[in-house]
């Protein structure tokens, strides 16, 4: 079975390609069979591979398809299945397939049904390439591929003004990070002549002095330089400060896309990359600290914005940014398995929440404003229960999955004696519980605040949408088992072969009462939910509006997302636009085109003037000739 590993990313790719070969107007059932069938086969194959993988003596399987490069630089198109990529493989294929299934119902009435599935399959192929690649270049191909699909799917509704803009924004902001990622790869090639994980990491782990010398323009060590470059790449893809701005706007895409790409899989690619590079990060303690600080800052920053959003998808988007911050906090603290643990549990409950919100939006006829919802509990019971499970999981309530993964991260912060980061994480946990239950109460409790037509239209979603909800809900409840705290942390033990320990680096271990920390986190989360209940429990946004009127400045600041988009617009977008205008009008149109036109004009004027010499009269020519001879003669004499 493991020999078929290469088929896992190829199948969805073939699905995307064959989608175009189905003819002009294929029946919808055919598109569904092809483009949902391909991820299903991928999932089954992946499960088979994982089964065989679990029975390997050493948890590592490599498959080289062909040599990509010739010469001293050795890069292969090759796949690697190790514990880390195995976890990612399971998350991507499982959540990916469920979202394909869900999309059959959600996108059922859409004109672009076929185009949508072509993009979605292409995304699956790129994402699987990203996690299965055995070197950074294959990862980078997948990395760019998912970026492209993100752009295509965010701008899916291209006939409206905003989605194409949001798609462009997502793509361009990501390019900033990709540039740094490329720089990091160049540095690795410069030093090791390869990008293969298995060829670089063991060498560094055995001999850390290989990467300890100064490198690059800022006096950083080689390890710090590479780690910083890769983290900037991760900032773009995984929406960290200051490159997070694209993710909330990416909600302009269809909701299942938000669930799959902008919550469960693609945005976690940066976390995966940092964890994959853990050897180098361990040797760059300064950069690791930076990663942790940025992660914590992003977590609390996005959580506060989430408090004041009224669009249900925007709330979930900022919560995604915030949870990604958590993952980077963990990775920066050296708790790599905790980062992957939270990545996995987050994939389940955030996909669940997004799909739940999609079910609500579907029932509301496209309405996304929570102020016009309310009391949907009765009309959408299945959506309500699954959404509630997701909300409890993200809030970190025992025994749902989010409790364990969040607790492990907070525990890592406390164990490292990083009390500021711990406190920020704890406050964020409280805020998360508050804004998630704000969404729950506004959407499902109280009385309906929409129009009578919407109320009449309310209906529970079809089974193709509710079945994925329930399956994800099961994941959101049980995924925590993978990382039970203590000696028997299955995920931690599983990932231990991937987390190398460079010689001379010691993890700081302080004794700390896990039970006490867990109780504190639980209390904070419960307080957040209780507060949300007191404010939003029954009467919609009435109390919030009263508060907003009292603290108008603060509320406006949050509702306008700290004016970051406006600041970026003034500081970066407009100066760049002005510069582009200067280069267009000034340099291109005036200087370059002008110099060409000047040359042409000179030739024309010279021709106009010169043609008078061509009289056609032979005797004139004879005179010129004679004068010329005379001149030659004079020149000879003198």
């Amino acid at each position, binding site marked *: 079975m493991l020999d078929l590993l290469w088929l896992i990313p190829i199948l969805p790719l073939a699905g995307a390609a064959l989608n175009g070969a189905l003819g002009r107007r294929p029946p919808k059932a055919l598109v569904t069979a092809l483009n949902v069938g391909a991820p299903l086969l991928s999932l089954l194959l992946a499960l088979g591979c994982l089964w065989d993988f679990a029975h390997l003596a050493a948890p590592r399987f490599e498959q080289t398809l062909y040599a990509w490069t010739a010469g001293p630089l050795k890069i292969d198109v090759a796949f690697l299945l190790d514990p880390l990529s195995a976890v990612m493989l399971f998350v991507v294929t499982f959540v990916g397939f469920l979202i394909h299934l869900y999309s059959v119902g959600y996108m059922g009435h859409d004109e672009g049904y076929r185009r949508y599935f072509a993009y979605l399959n292409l995304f699956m192929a790129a994402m699987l390439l990203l996690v299965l690649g055995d070197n950074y270049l294959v990862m980078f191909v997948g990395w760019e591929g998912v970026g492209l699909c993100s752009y295509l799917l965010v701008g899916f509704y291209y006939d409206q003004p905003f989605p194409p803009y949001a798609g462009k924004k997502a793509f361009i902001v990501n390019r900033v990070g990709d540039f740094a990622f490329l720089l990091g790869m160049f540095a690795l090639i410069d030093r090791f002549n390869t990008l293969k994980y298995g060829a670089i990491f063991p060498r560094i782990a055995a001999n850390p002095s290989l990467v300890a010398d100064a490198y690059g323009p800022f006096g950083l060590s080689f390890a710090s330089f590479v780690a910083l470059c890769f983290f900037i790449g991760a900032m773009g893809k995984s929406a960290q400060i200051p490159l997070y701005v694209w993710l909330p706007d990416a909600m302009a895409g269809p909701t299942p896309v938000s669930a799959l790409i902008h919550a469960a899989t693609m945005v976690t690619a940066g976390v995966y990359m940092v964890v994959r590079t853990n050897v180098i990060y361990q040797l760059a303690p300064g950069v690791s600290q930076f990663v942790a600080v940025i992660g914590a800052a992003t977590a609390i920053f996005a959580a506060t914005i989430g408090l004041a959003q009224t669009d249900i998808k925007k709330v979930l988007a900022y919560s995604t940014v915030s949870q990604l911050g958590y993952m980077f906090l963990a990775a920066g603290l050296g708790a790599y398995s905790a980062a992957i643990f939270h990545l996995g549990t987050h994939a389940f409950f955030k996909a669940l929440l997004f799909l739940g919100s999609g079910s609500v939006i579907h029932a509301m006829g496209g309405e996304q404003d929570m102020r016009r919802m309310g009391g949907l509990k009765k009309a959408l019971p299945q959506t309500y229960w699954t959404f509630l499970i997701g909300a409890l999981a993200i809030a970190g309530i025992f025994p749902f999955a989010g409790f364990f993964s969040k607790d492990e991260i907070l525990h890592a912060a406390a164990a490292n004696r990083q009390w500021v980061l711990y406190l920020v994480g704890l406050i964020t946990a409280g805020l998360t519980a508050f804004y998630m239950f704000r969404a729950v109460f506004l959407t499902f409790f109280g009385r309906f605040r929409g129009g009578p037509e919407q109320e009449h239209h309310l209906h529970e979603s079809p089974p193709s949408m509710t079945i994925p909800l329930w399956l994800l809900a099961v994941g959101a409840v049980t995924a925590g088992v993978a990382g039970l705290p203590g000696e028997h942390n299955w995920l931690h033990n599983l990932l231990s072969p991937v987390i190398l320990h460079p010689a001379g680096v010691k993890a700081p271990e302080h004794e700390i009462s896990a039970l006490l920390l867990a109780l504190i986190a639980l209390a904070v989360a419960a307080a957040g939910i209780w507060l949300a209940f007191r404010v939003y429990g029954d009467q919609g946004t009435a109390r919030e509006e009263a508060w907003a009127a009292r603290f108008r400045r603060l509320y406006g600041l949050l509702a306008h997302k700290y004016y970051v988009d406006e600041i970026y617009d003034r500081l970066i977008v407009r100066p760049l636009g002005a510069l582009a205008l200067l280069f267009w009008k000034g340099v291109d149109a005036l200087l370059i085109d002008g110099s060409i036109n000047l040359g042409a004009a000179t030739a024309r004027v010279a021709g106009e003037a010169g043609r*008078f010499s*061509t009289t*056609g009269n032979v005797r004139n020519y004879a005179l010129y000739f004679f004068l010329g001879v005379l001149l030659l003669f004079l020149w000879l004499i003198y």
Partner: protein
Amino acid sequence: MSVPVTWYLLLAALLFAIGCVGALTRRNGINIFLSIELMLNAANLSLVAYSRQLDLRTGQLIVLFVLAVAAAEAAVGLALFIAVFRQRRTIDLNRINLMRW
């Protein structure tokens, strides 16, 4: 007694100048043609004069070549003028300006 070479050269220069002015000022093709012949023969004269002065036979040899070339030129030139005359009914060079802009 012999005529000094200077006299021959002066005569040659005079003939050349007459031919030159004639070639530049005349409008009739045949006249220009004759003027050119005059210049060629002025050159011939100076060649012969130097040949005798320097006691070199080469000069007289070149003269024979020049005569042959001049004869060929006359044949081609006259044929051209006849052809032009048949076409345009004139050999006034001021009116044969086909190459004019």
